[in-house]
């Protein structure tokens, strides 16, 4: 039930946004979000509400560290 999907904001109208992932669009409310978001930002959407802004820099850093530590050629 706690599933939340990272979706990219593609339009904003006050506290309502439309967010998209893999071609699927959903409207979401920013009512309970405590961070400022803009077009192109990723938010985690749960039950029609954005609950958190996704920190892309953190995500990329994690992936980079992991790919360095575990290169594909060693684990395929």
């Amino acid at each position: 039930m706690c599933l939340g999907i990272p979706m990219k904001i593609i339009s904003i109208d006050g506290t309502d946004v439309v967010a998209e992932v893999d071609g699927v669009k959903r409207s979401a409310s920013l009512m309970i979000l405590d961070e400022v978001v803009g077009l192109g930002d990723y938010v985690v959407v749960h039950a029609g509400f954005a609950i958190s802004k996704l920190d892309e820099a953190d995500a990329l850093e994690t992936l980079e560290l992991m790919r360095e530590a575990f290169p594909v050629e060693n684990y395929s």
Partner: protein
Amino acid sequence: MNYMDEFRDRSIVLGLAERIKELAAGRPEPMTFMEVCGTHTMAIYQYGLRSLLPDGVRLISGPGCPVCVTPNGYIDRAIALSRLPDTIITTFGDMVRVPGSTSSLMEERARGADVRIVYSPLDAVSIAEKNAGKRVVFLGVGFETTAPAIAGSILTAASKGLVNYSVLAAHKTIPLPMEILSSDPELSIDGYICPAHVSAIIGAEAYMPLAEKLGVPCVVTGFEPVDVMQGVEMLVRQVVEKRSSVEIQYGRVVKWEGNRKAQAILAEVFSVCDSEWRGIGVIPGSGLEIAEKFAAFDAEKTIPVTVEEPREHLGCLCGDILKGKRSPFDCPLFATVCMPESPVGACMVSSEGTCAAAYKYGR
């Protein structure tokens, strides 16, 4: 990039599995980690992550599926409400098939009750707007991830002046049962894979008592396979280094302090109450009920209804499974009498129940 596929990278998962094996090698005692979120349970089964872990690292599932820990009495009340005239029950999909003491919402719908599955509680508010002559009740079940969304629907209904929208609230909060389970000598939990999106709301700081007072390592972990394996690796490392602290693996979404605005909305709309957990019993201070200020939106207070005496299902091991004491394979009903199409217990109904996950992926 969609920030999901990248965290399903096979080579990273295998690399982490190897590192876990190295770290755990030569440990005299096996380590047991509990995941307390149904979405983790699902991911662990779906990606076969247990099979990648060495014998010395064991994962068990805890009370992390909100539908599963909701006692029969709640379902029975929802069923009783659905039988009232001019009443529309709105709910997330999982609740519809959960068997109550003698019926389910699905059976009631077949008999003519108006039971509607919605994606968001805001959809339920829209239904209330369009059906002024009827009362619309939303079944407010879920942990801290979901409770702010329900609170948001109540605030929205209040701002629109709606008088026909209410919530039957049975929200539960996660940290207290974790503290209770970690004190259970039968379980001996060496660490927690802490929930991902619950923590986005309450923050990693909520697990400080567990790590500091009870000495249990806690790692807030995301839902993708790379996340889970890295979370387990961080837990193994804490055990090996004899540390117990709160760490965040899922830093791209979870902050130490969580989502303060959602926390404030929760505090405004709900008050803390005692709550009954299936399998565990009543845990003081582990539930959220609608605050006095919003009593007009509380279906339990505003809609009087007679509810049948709740009965548990004989032979069903859901209670012990929710505590991590038994596995679905220990239950005589599992995959014989109790199946996804004809569930006996809630753990088989919810898509993220331990039995449903074991049935779909674990056999």
